[in-house]
């Protein structure tokens, strides 16, 4: 006759029993390592960064003075530094907006219509570019956008050179070719960060049941009204998540603006130069705080606009 209690088969059964008696123990075991990582390594270095930004550098000796001062932050407000910030924020904003517009139909198709093999093809298509080296992609784009590149060649063949020439004659984007114009920098940024916009958008759209769209149209809404009042608000958390990626990645990147475009300084490049050749760690740190502040302001505004109401 079988007993009411089954015999323990070894340490795995005993451990499971222990976790059953003390559910908090398993949780503690699971979250301690990531908490240590996040708390000590990640937040710790962020705190160190913040600390550095309140130090200043002695202009003659180049030595960091470990005294609290706002002098370094004041330096950010010099015309040339403000210029860097303005240019980078403008670029990040344009990249984010364009990515969102390009990503939406793709994400919508994937969430609503793609099934089975199509869905697999979608994920592969979105993720595949992420598997190859970032540098290879950026240099490939330099060739594509160059004056002797395939884009110019194709434009000549199809008599659409006027489009490229038109873009290159816009004030602020002037250059001899796309690969040396901020327009080129912009295109490469959009290409490189687009997947980071598509994936969260698709995840958000996937959670919108078809019946909700039907309800909207049932109640008399046109397609445009359904998009504005139902789809967009429900997709908004995904759009915000995606825009955090594209916006902050563009704000901090220092490689793309260095390889493609007119080499005008960006926040990322400034940080890179200040901590490297210039050895001005405090100013580099102060520059690095700028994207953090911008993102915090951005999120606060998004929250106020009701972007997270659907969460």
């Amino acid at each position, binding site marked *: 006759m079988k007993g009411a209690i089954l015999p323990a088969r070894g340490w795995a059964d005993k451990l499971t029993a222990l976790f059953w008696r003390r559910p908090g123990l398993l949780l503690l075991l699971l979250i301690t390592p990531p908490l240590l990582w996040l708390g000590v390594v990640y937040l710790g270095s962020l705190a160190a960064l913040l600390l550095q930004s309140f130090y200043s550098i002695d202009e003659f000796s180049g030595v960091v003075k470990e005294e609290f001062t706002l002098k370094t932050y004041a330096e950010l407000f010099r015309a040339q530094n403000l210029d860097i910030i303005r240019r980078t924020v403008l670029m990040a904003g344009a990249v984010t907006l364009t990515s969102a517009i390009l990503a939406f139909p793709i994400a919508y198709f994937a969430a609503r219509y793609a099934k089975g093999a199509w869905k697999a093809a979608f994920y592969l298509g979105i993720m595949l570019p992420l598997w190859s080296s970032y540098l290879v992609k950026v240099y490939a784009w330099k060739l594509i956008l160059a004056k002797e590149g395939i884009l110019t060649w194709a434009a000549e063949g199809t008599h659409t050179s006027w489009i490229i020439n038109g873009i290159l004659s816009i004030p602020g984007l002037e250059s001899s070719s796309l690969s040396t114009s901020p327009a080129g920098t912009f295109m490469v940024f959009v290409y490189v960060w687009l997947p980071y916009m598509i994936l969260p958008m698709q995840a958000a759209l996937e959670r919108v*049941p078809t*019946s*909700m769209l*039907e*309800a*909207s*149209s*049932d*109640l*008399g*809404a*046109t397609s445009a*009204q359904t998009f504005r*009042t*139902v789809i967009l*608000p*429900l997709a908004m958390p995904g759009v915000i998540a995606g825009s955090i990626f594209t916006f902050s990645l563009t704000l901090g990147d220092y490689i793309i603006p260095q390889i493609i475009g007119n080499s005008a300084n960006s926040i990322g490049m400034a940080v890179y130069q200040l901590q490297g050749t210039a050895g001005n760690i405090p100013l580099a740190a102060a520059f690095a705080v700028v994207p953090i502040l911008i993102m915090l302001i951005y999120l606060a505004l998004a929250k106020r606009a*009701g972007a997270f*109401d*659907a969460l």
Partner: protein
Amino acid sequence: MTAAVTFSNVSRHFGSTKAVDGVDLTVPEGAFFAMLGPSGSGKTTCLRLISGFEQPTTGEIRIFGEDVSRIPPHLRAVNTVFQDYALFPHLNVRDNVAYGLMVKGMSRTARHARAEEMLALVKLEGYGDRKPAQLSGGQRQRVALARALVNEPRVLLLDEPLGALDLKLREAMQDELKALQAKLGLTFVFVTHDQHEALSMADHLAVFNQGRIAQVGSPQEIYDRPSSRFVADFVGSSNVLPPALTQSLGGPAQWSSLRPESVQLVEPGSPEGQISGQVTGLRYLGAATRILLTAQGTEIAALLPSGQPVPAIGDTRSLRFDPKALHLMEGA
């Protein structure tokens, strides 16, 4: 009497699947019309054909005489209460209800006033500021109802309206829906797979089977005089008797149905008994006990009112019934 909805030879095929196959249907104005059938019988597709979420492959659909076969959902004076309610999670209850007025361009104050009236109609005064997630299932259903009614539709469609509610709430909601329909004088069309719900709420009933209509009529007609074995089987828990058994009970060699409540049990060998069988199952239902007798290889159910002595499994009993209760059906 005007017809609210008419289907003329309507079919809806999905590839080789004939979801709806040559349906002719008339929903009279002011009716509480039920479309009853098992899942996959085409009843939901028919509802979606009325709302416009499906287009007929062939045939013609008219709403109050107007051909709507090529009219999109947002231009039909028809509104739907969805099975999952489909409330907008980012809008509060008031804005959910006012949605139909908002997309029509009504001013905020006017539409909010209207929404409050509708909320009062479904007994949800004071809930306007809540989000759908903060409501119970029954409350969400009322919001969905108010939202569908705010546009003053000529026909209200309800897709399995009570499916997600628990039994007590379901019964309360049945009475309320019926009262609401009587009060508004609207045509209600609802889809259900629950025969009790269909019988108790509807005044007209269409029974669907495999994309076709098996029978249309009043609940009494369908319950008392099912036209086929399928209807007898599906609507109510009727006994379906094969031709041989019908014959030995004194009828013609035809399929017939016999309601369990028309069957009485008597001692075996009693002169009143028409056929005897063995008790093979007992189910206590509260007000009665449902007894299964196997006679000539067919299970026959009888309802024994409580208070009468209940036989044991394996006992032999005879059946007695009024010959008029034996309803003959067409078909093999």
